[in-house]
């Protein structure tokens, strides 16, 4: 039933969020120093998933979470002490719940062996004296202090906040549950109910007084109201049997209310109520409770918003452009208005981009599980350290990060990290370490995955590459080049294809994926010491501040955040190292020069840096380099448009944008550029070259297409082969 599917979807989304949050809490749980609130949160999460599982008839999930919840319940109320065994069980249990939820998502039956093992362990903890069978449905009566037996009478006051229904709570359900406890008398207080023409259909105006005769404890009763504790005032009071009267004189027993701020100490009643005032407003600021006021929004809607703001930026640039073209007339007024418009647009853009920013934590948090599973499988001992999880990145990038990160970690575990015996033999600590870190740098996000394993086995990589025809048998690639071979398509050195890393699709897919996002990934390795992957990605996919530069008849955009400075070097400071390598000196440093005119085969550009300009930029892979351009045309905020969408990624180009003139301009990928080689031979003397008609020129090689149509394609073929060679 399609309608039902929609709720299932919500259940899955919610479960995923709960599991992610719980995983974090569980891994931080230290039996010697923990906050009881963590156990409460874990219990609530599992309890919620159990409820949904039951509703959608996911039987294995429901069954497991039921038992799991019992364990958590006993831990949080103190009848069971939290020790390392329990903490580990909690982590395991969450993994199993996660597996079951995934199985339910995919509509397949889950494997039950792990769950059965965990259940046995849970039983062992809950019932160490062996009598395993516990009645399935009723939670264990736990309040030992009050277990004198016999019926007690409670007076319960339940005063929900106005917003109760909006948090999907239904008082009727509580009342029904209370009824199952024993004998319940209900008194409703409708005094807050306004006239019918003033009623807000979704607000709650009623409150209740219950009198309950039951053998259950006050804690059990409080549990009934567990999920509305923030949205209502609840008072539970035991009265001596038979005396159901005015409670004013009785000393209140404040023990039982389940408050968000609970430690082990009894807490006063939740404070939200203003006495007498019917308005309850938003539920509790209960201090530590993470009452996040947030709403769920369809990502499509946000994307639309982001796109529209992007178009706004382009239009604003067009207006500025046109204003410039209208020379003179009323200029100063326009300038001020333009400035304000630009300012507002920029602010709007920042605000909109911030909506989609999320901490990378959500994708990092999948890693501990992966490491646990793989270490177990491969019999390796690994400690995963994560840093900088709060670093924020656009949501669309976060989703794309999951696969690459997984591949990198798998790669580490499979190829890099040695077995404990091997490590001992090498004099390394038995426990290997993988460090995952994220940080902002130069307006980009840099994610690193480092391990202290054995590094890349260069001999093996080299021989495998020769075997696959990726490099010539007699070639002599540098260490760095060998390392980069692992990104080649189809590459894999695993002796057999296992489901861990052997398939060989891993690293090249990683590189392609990251490149499609406008980022890059490099690998660094030291034999015996370890391997490091560095991933860089743009912070946002949509907008960037750029410097427009001209090279011949073309205009390109250099990301402003990467620009350090712009200089015009003196001829004496320029040094030619060899045919493809020029440097120039700047304050004692020698920086490599990249000629866009050569790398991009642009005709008519200034090729003598001392007559043009050198834009000094920072790259991740190659440090500081100088880009030779003709002139700077101005700074501009540009909206990133994808070339990949309808074509494919182009080396040296991270995307395109539409300038105020309507023309498409390419945005440079500085890291990519620094790794490209120029194709055209060094021009001997470009000064006389005024040819700019690209119709008869193909990639810098002139042909006379009228007389020899094949020349074009031969030239193209030559270029293409060259390209392939350069890429290897």
């Amino acid at each position, binding site marked *: 039933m399609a309608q039902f599917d929609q709720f299932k979807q919500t259940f899955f989304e919610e479960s995923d969020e709960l599991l992610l949050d719980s995983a974090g809490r569980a891994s931080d749980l230290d039996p010697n120093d923990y906050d009881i609130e963590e156990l409460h949160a874990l219990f609530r999460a599992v309890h919620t998933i159990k409820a949904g599982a039951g509703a959608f008839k996911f039987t294995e999930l429901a069954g497991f979470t039921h038992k799991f919840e019992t364990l958590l319940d006993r831990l949080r109320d103190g009848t069971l002490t939290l020790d390392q065994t329990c903490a580990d069980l909690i982590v395991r249990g969450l993994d199993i719940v996660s597996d079951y939820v995934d199985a339910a998502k995919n509509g397949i039956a889950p494997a039950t062996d792990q769950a059965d093992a965990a259940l046995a362990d849970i039983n062992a903890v809950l019932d160490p004296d062996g009598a395993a069978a516990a009645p399935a449905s009723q939670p264990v009566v736990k309040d030992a202090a009050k277990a004198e037996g016999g019926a007690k009478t409670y007076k319960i006051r339940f005063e929900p906040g106005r917003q109760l229904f909006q948090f999907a709570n239904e008082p009727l359900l509580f009342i029904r549950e209370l009824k199952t406890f024993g004998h319940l008398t209900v008194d409703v207080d409708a005094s807050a109910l306004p006239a019918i023409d003033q009623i807000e259909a979704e607000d709650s105006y009623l409150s209740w007084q219950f009198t309950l005769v039951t053998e259950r404890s006050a804690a059990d009763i409080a549990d009934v109201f567990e999920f509305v504790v923030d949205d209502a005032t609840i008072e539970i009071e035991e009265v001596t049997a038979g005396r159901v009267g005015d409670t004013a004189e009785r000393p209140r027993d404040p023990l039982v209310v389940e408050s968000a701020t609970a430690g082990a100490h009894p807490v006063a009643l939740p404070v939200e109520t203003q006495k007498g005032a019917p308005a309850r407003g938003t539920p509790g600021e209960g201090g530590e409770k993470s009452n996040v006021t947030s709403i769920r929004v369809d990502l499509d809607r946000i994307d639309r918003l982001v796109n529209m703001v992007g*178009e706004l930026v*382009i239009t604003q640039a067009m207006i500025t452009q046109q204003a410039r073209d209208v020379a003179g007339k009323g200029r100063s007024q326009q300038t001020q208005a333009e400035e304000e418009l630009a300012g507002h647009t920029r602010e709007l853009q920042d605000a909109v981009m911030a909506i989609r920013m999320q901490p990378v934590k959500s994708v990092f948090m999948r890693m501990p599980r992966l490491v646990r599973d793989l270490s177990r499988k491969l019999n390796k001992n690994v400690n995963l350290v994560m840093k900088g999880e709060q670093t924020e990145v656009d949501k669309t990038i976060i989703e794309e990060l999951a696969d690459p990160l997984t591949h990198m970690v798998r790669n580490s575990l499979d190829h890099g990290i040695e077995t404990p015996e091997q490590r001992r033999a090498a004099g390394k600590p038995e426990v290997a370490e993988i460090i995952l870190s994220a940080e902002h740098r130069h307006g980009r996000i840099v994610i690193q995955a480092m391990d202290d394993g054995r590094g890349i086995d260069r001999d093996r990589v080299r021989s495998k590459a020769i075997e696959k025809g990726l490099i010539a048998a007699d070639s002599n690639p540098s260490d760095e080049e060998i390392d980069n071979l692992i990104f080649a398509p189809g590459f894999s050195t695993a002796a057999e294809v296992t489901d861990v890393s052997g398939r060989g699709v891993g690293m090249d897919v990683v590189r392609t994926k990251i490149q499609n996002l406008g980022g890059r990934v490099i690998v660094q390795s030291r034999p015996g010491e370890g391997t490091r992957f560095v991933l860089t990605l743009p912070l946002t996919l949509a907008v960037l501040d750029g410097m427009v530069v001209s090279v011949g008849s*073309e205009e390109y955009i250099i990301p402003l955040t990467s620009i350090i400075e712009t200089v015009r070097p003196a001829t004496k400071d320029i040094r030619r190292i060899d045919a493809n390598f020029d440097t120039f000196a700047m304050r004692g440093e020698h920086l490599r020069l990249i000629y866009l005119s050569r*790398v*991009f*085969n*642009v005709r008519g550009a200034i090729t003598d840096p001392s007559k043009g300009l050198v834009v000094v930029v920072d790259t991740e892979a190659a440090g500081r380099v100088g880009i030779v351009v003709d002139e700077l045309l101005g700074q501009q905020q540009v909206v990133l*448009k*994808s*070339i990949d*969408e*309808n*074509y*494919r990624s*182009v*080396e*040296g*180009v991270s995307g*395109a944008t*539409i300038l105020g003139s*309507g*023309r*498409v*301009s*390419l945005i440079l990928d500085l890291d990519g550029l620094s790794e490209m080689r120029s*194709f055209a031979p060094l021009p001997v003397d470009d000064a006389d070259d005024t040819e700019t008609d*690209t*119709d*008869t020129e*193909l*990639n810098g090689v002139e042909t006379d*297409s*009228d007389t020899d*149509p*094949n020349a*074009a*394609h*031969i*030239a*193209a*073929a030559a*270029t*293409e082969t060259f*390209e392939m060679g350069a890429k290897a």
Partner: protein
Amino acid sequence: MSDTSVQAGMDDIESPEGLTKAIAAGAASARASGNLDPQQFVSFTVGAEEYGIDIMQVREIKGWTEVTLLPNQPPHMRGVMNLRGVIVPIYDMRARFGQGMTEATATHVVIIVQVHDKTVGILVDAVSDILTVRNDQISPIPEVEYSENARFLEGMVTMNERMVAVMSLAKLIRNDALEFTDLTADAA
């Protein structure tokens, strides 16, 4: 067999906008009829040859405007164009068919098509007609002569004593890397 029908008045339509409208109307009627048989094609000329492509793939017709060159791409890849905020690559069909680069002027035409979920433009000399063709009117390509292009040609149609080669854009533009199938590999 020359009872393939021709949309009346195509010769009168000069402007790209007019062409687009005519094609949209044709596509609409093709969709309405379930587009199985007969099929509708948009035919265009490149040099002396005429080709036809499925009308359902054609989005619009644009006059040739300036493109921004993408560095280090095959020669038939002219560059990219701004199509109302979307970056669209433009392929030179004349170059693609081995006849050299088009010397594009304002009278040349770019057909914007949708292939494999991508929007691309193909630069041709002119758009000629909208043809309605039944499946049995398409004759297979004789293997020997056209081996080079045979891979993406689905057949020939004779129309008013002209021969129109029916082209499969999907085969011409391979899905994986949006790479044209390699002509040079077969070049004699």
